[in-house]
């Protein structure tokens, strides 16, 4: 076995044994009296947890899972869901009880305040339930159901909180997936490389998380230190020069290099790529490969259509995907999508609700998150992205995006009233932001780094997908650097053709003239 192979085995054993040890533990939570309930509310479960884990809730309150607030150390820009815009629902502000159903707490009903100011409390079960029965309901600001409720015509029973409390353990794929698989409002909608197919993925879909692969959980790589997760979309480690983290010395295994190092291939020429090409670019040939489609287009401008009877219109395609919704507009979906490729140094400039759009719009298209990087800055690699197309309401006079109030039982929410001026007026007023009273729709793009759904090595992207002159080549549109097989002088071939032409003419003359031996 080569030293590299030995290293890989050691890395795997350390990672998996660390996880297995944590999973087994020395405490059986089903035997703790305090967890036997009964619990009137989920907040009571958190109180019970805190009788032993005295510091846990305090730690959670420092994490982005709780604060939804972070400052990008590369750009200095203050980020977090209450501040930045995306191409899905735009902003969670004024839509809280729906959007904050994925907050790691209970009762954050007003995003204009911090969760503490709003009196919210920490949710332990969202991340630690091991029973698979605990579920935050979609519209109650992070709370689960406490009594049966009819949702979409079906009566849904509340979870058994005591059963959930006694089942707690390290986070499983389902725990993280409950929110992260459903970003953008549904399974697989937002990211493209995160959806419910990863709960129990086959090896071809995800070589790390498959039961017959490495059988890892999300937190095997996204290591948590005092409840602070590692790995970030806001500030990506685009190149990990630190390399191997085993034994995990920087307590962050969220990059491929953490376990595989910077030169993981047996072949030197393949290793020569790792300084310029992110691992993901070759090892995730397509995203949305698990049978769950991801949304690739969301056009808000067409929303609000009603039929002859005044009923909102909903249209589904042959795959049962909603392609038009009066609430949301037109949609397009993709499965097995080839990523877009961009130079990326880890810096993304997001668009805040308050940002003027001047200078951010090119050819009528606003890129909501501008991906930093270039072939020459020495800090970038070629990364794969999901390109999300959008068309969103904005204020053409003040030149900002607008908060669209979509959810709520009032006379303004767009999803019940289908009236943009009312919904925008409400949203902007609620957010305390100026609005000219005019609105239009602007075409948007958003780029989501692709890093999950790593395929087995035999399914990696072949060399010739990029090293080709084919205009359909994966990197055909990425300029500014020389790549063998794609670039090169076409003129040089002339030397060869001239030589061929020369000998053909000369040979022809010799045959015609037959060496002067004409009779």
């Amino acid at each position: 076995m080569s030293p590299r192979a030995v290293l890989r085995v050691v890395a795997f054993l350390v990672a998996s044994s660390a996880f297995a040890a944590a999973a087994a533990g020395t405490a059986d939570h089903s035997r703790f009296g305090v967890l036997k309930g009964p619990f009137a509310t989920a907040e009571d479960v958190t109180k019970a947890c805190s009788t032993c884990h005295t510091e846990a809730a305090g730690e959670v309150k420092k994490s982005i899972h709780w604060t939804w607030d972070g400052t990008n150390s590369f750009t200095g820009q203050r980020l977090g869901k209450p501040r930045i815009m995306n191409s899905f629902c735009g902003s969670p502000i004024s839509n809280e009880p729906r959007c904050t159903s994925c907050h790691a707490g209970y009762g954050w009903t007003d995003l204009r305040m911090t969760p503490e100011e709003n009196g919210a409390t920490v949710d332990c079960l969202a991340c630690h339930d091991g029973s698979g029965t605990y579920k935050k309901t979609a519209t109650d600001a992070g709370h689960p159901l406490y009594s049966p409720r009819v949702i979409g015509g079906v009566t849904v029973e509340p979870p058994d909180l005591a059963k959930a409390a006694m089942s707690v353990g390290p986070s499983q794929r389902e725990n993280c997936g409950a929110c992260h698989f459903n970003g953008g409002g549904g399974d697989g909608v937002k990211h493209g490389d995160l959806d419910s197919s990863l709960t129990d993925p086959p090896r071809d879909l995800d070589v790390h998380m498959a039961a017959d692969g490495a059988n890892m959980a999300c937190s095997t790589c996204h290591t948590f230190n005092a409840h602070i997760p590692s790995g970030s979309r806001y500030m990506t480690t685009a190149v990990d020069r630190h390399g191997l983290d085993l034994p995990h010395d920087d307590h962050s295994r969220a990059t491929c290099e953490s376990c595989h190092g910077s030169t993981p291939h047996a072949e030197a020429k393949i290793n020569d790529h790792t300084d310029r090409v992110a691992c993901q670019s070759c090892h995730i040939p397509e995203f949305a490969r698990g049978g769950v489609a991801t949304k690739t287009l969301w056009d808000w401008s067409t929303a609000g259509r009603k039929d002859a009877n005044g009923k909102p219109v909903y249209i589904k395609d042959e795959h049962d995907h909603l392609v038009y919704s009066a609430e949301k507009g037109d949609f397009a979906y993709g499965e097995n999508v080839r990523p877009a490729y961009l130079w990326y140094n880890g810096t993304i400039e997001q668009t805040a609700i308050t940002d003027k759009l001047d200078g951010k719009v090119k050819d009528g298209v606003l890129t909501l998150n501008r991906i930093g990087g270039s072939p020459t800055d020495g800090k970038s690699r070629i990364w794969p992205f999901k390109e999300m197309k959008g068309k969103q309401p904005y204020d053409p006079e003040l030149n900002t995006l607008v908060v669209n109030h979509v959810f709520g039982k009032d006379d303004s929410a767009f999803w019940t009233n289908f009236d943009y001026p009312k919904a925008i007026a409400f949203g902007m007023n609620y957010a305390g932001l100026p609005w000219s009273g005019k609105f239009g729709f602007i075409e948007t793009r958003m780029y989501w780094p692709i890093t999950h759904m790593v395929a087995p090595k035999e399914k990696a992207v072949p060399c010739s997908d990029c090293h080709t002159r084919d205009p359909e080549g994966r990197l055909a549109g990425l300029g500014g650097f020389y790549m063998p097989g794609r670039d090169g002088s076409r003129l040089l071939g002339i030397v060869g053709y001239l030589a061929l032409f020369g000998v053909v003419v000369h040979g022809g003359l010799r045959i015609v003239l037959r060496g002067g031996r004409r009779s």
Partner: protein
Amino acid sequence: MSHKREVMIYTRYERFWHWSQAVLVFTLFFTGLAIHGTHDLVPFGLAVKIHTNAALLLIALWVFTTFWNFTTGQWRQYLFKKGVFRVIRFYAWGILFGEPHPYKKSLQRKQNALQSLAYMTFMTLIGPALWSTGIAYFLYNSWSHYAWAGTGLWAVALLHTAAAFAMGAFVIVHVYMTTTGKTPLHYVRTMVTGYDSIELTEVEEAYIEETKSTEMR
């Protein structure tokens, strides 16, 4: 008095050198064109692998042949000879009208003046241009951290391609020239068997018979 005798003029090593070099050059050119993007008969990754290994073999062959050329004194064959223009005139004009070749092969002079010049160019210009840029290209990652690496890679790749096309042109003309012998296959047969009919003086003939310095039939 002199007569023509069949004399071994290309030794076993020269023939081995020539034909193994031919195979490697064809392999390199074919896989090189695949890497260049001219054709996709070989997938890019495999083409790179074959190209790299064939190049290493060719460099090894050249290193050994350079050693051989100097230890045997054969390097003198490639020195500049007078009469280049007469040979050029012959191939451009005379050959079409049945003029005799201005040059006679002898034991000491296997090549005509144009051949010597062409092979000298091959060995001192095209060859080194190829292996120097090829090695620089291969070792790209050891200099990729310099600010000029982007332009550098482009320049190295372009020079390598230019030298490769010069080599391609050489090979095309070289192969074509093999058809200009007494019969179209005469020169090829000579390069396979090593024997060519050479006009020997009586003294040369007697010397070879006596010393067996080379084979003669």
